[in-house]
């Protein structure tokens, strides 16, 4: 059974095209990642899927319901965490979660088991105003509020943007736990390293899906051998590599430079490594200038 079916969805704002012919499916209970930089069209796609805006073309079905015709049904079964913090800053933690429970005709007590792992971490601060929480805590509260009505499908639009690496790791652990409870999760992120935590991912750039598959399969599809080079002076090394006609691409990765060669027989004993999603993403995307 498919939880989500997206079929040839396109959307433009004025003359600018935001999404071009997007199609994909998500299985029930799957953790699906939409990965790409800011401005790639992730939020537009999420808003179409959550019935907030209408696509120009194409159709979206969630649990068999159409986002246009059956939007009222869909609004009962999805949970949504928008890209920017969308809780009431002047209400306390408790007031926020109670309100969102009431919005869905339920109570905090009724579905407490679902949010317990997450909410218990912010429970000591229940009387604090949501606006006075730290980034990580806001994120936990927002997730609790999106979950409190026991949604079947959960949409998280860039939940980890601007959050430090520790909180990000925690957050992904929470998502894994939710997945075990049978909730289908669709999440977007600009951080390529988070890709491997999803069952399947779509790489999105400039409004287009460049590829969809499991992270492992995408890495396997990397068409070239990838070499890693080190130097104390990376800038210098980079300049040398750019002059080298045999070097096809060269991208810095922390303390090393990842290189692909035109003629792989002349690899000069470079160290071969396994590509990452980021390598694959850059391979697929056209440089901006």
């Amino acid at each position, binding site marked *: 059974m498919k939880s989500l079916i997206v079929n040839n969805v396109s959307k433009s704002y004025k003359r600018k095209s935001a999404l071009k012919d997007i199609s994909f499916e998500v299985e029930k209970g799957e953790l699906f990642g939409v990965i790409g930089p800011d401005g790639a069209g992730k939020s537009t796609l999420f*808003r179409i899927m*959550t*019935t*907030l*805006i*209408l696509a120009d073309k194409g159709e979206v079905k969630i649990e068999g319901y159409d986002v246009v015709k059956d*939007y*009222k049904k869909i*609004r*009962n079964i*999805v949970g*949504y965490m*928008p890209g*920017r*913090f*969308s*809780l*009431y*800053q*002047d*209400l306390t933690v408790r*007031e926020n979660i*109670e*309100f*969102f429970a*009431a*919005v*869905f*005709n339920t109570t905090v007590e009724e579905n407490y088991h679902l949010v317990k792992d997450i909410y218990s971490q912010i429970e000591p601060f229940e009387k604090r105003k949501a606006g006075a929480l730290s980034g990580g805590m806001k994120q936990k509260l927002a997730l609790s*509020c*999106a979950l409190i*009505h026991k949604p079947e499908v959960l949409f998280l639009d860039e939940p980890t943007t601007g959050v430090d690496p520790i909180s990000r790791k925690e957050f992904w652990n929470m998502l894994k736990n939710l997945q075990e409870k049978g909730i289908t999760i669709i999440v977007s992120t600009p951080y390529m390293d988070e890709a491997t935590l999803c069952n399947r991912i779509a790489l999105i750039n400039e409004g287009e899906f460049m590829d969809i598959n499991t992270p492992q399969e995408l890495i396997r599809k990397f068409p070239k051998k990838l070499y890693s080079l080190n130097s104390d002076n990376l800038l210098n090394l980079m300049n040398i590599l750019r002059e080298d006609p045999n070097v096809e691409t060269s991208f810095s990765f922390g303390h090393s430079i990842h290189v692909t060669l035109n003629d792989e027989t002349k690899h000069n004993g470079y160290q071969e490594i396994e590509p990452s999603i980021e390598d694959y993403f850059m391979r697929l995307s056209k440089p901006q200038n």
Partner: protein
Amino acid sequence: MKKLFPFIKKEFLHVLRDTWTMMIILVLPVVMMLLFGYAVTNEIRDTNIGVLDLSKDNISASIIERVQQSEYFTLKHNYNSYHEIEPSFRKSEVGLVVVFDEDFSNNLLHKGKAELQIVADATDPNTAKTLVNYISSIAAQSLMELNKNNPKPMQITPELKLLYNPLMKSSYNFVPAVMGFIVILICTMMTSITIVREKERGTIEMLLVSPTKPIMIIISKLSPFFVVSIINIITIFLVSYFIMNVPVLGNIFVIGGVSLIFLLVALSLGLLFSTIAHSQLEALLYSGMIFLMPTTLLSGMLFPIESMPLFLQAIAQAMPAKWFIDAMRKLMIMGVDAKYVLKEVLVLTFMAITFMTISLKLFKKRL
């Protein structure tokens, strides 16, 4: 509908937590009432007056002397003919002229009754009326003296001639006007930013992606301002009745009822602005500039509608505050029965329903 309560609770929390706004909302009506009230009814001293004494005898002379002695008046001009009066007003040399006609003493002594003509600049009707009252009482005092040694009581009827504003509305006119103004200011302006604020802060996304019905959002959004405005109206009544001694002649329940209907009009208008605006600033421009300004100028708050050019009079009919102020003046100051304000009530009810329906229709189910 059990869902409605948490929504209303949330809206009240928003309003109550915003302490500063709350203070302004509650204190503003009082400040405005006092400002309007005292700016208008403050005691008047040292008004320049002129006298045209055609009677020229003891009685007129004694009255003029008393007037001169009074702290309220300074005698600036002694005219010799009627023709001199008008130019003197034009040059703002005097604010009031007392005229004793040729037969004044004669009438008084023989008929026991005479007319004293008082000409006043009524561009400010309140001042004019106060001045006229002073003059009348001074004249009455002079007569009392005369009557002491006269067996036949004599009487002076002041004959009032008002320039520039012959209708001379009551000095209490400003109370309904301030009420109308404050309700529009607070209800319409405050409501106009509530839904937009959720749009701006992104919280509307969370509400839209939920089974919440627009009507729930709308009713809950209106409720705190409805309550606050009722408090405001009551405050205005208390201030005007107890502090400023404005009479409330009509039935208090009818007055309350009409005020409630007007509140609904103001709220639904605010709602309408909130549903069309994209930002709080835009909403404030709609309610503050595009709406509040014509309301102030055209609803009869400041200027009488009868003296406006026809096309402005036509626009004035569309101002909700016009109907409210009309009804209130009739009810509070003239003390008429409910049936005389039926037309106003009907118009206001129609407006409330129309604006409410349009906002519901325009409320977007999506972003």
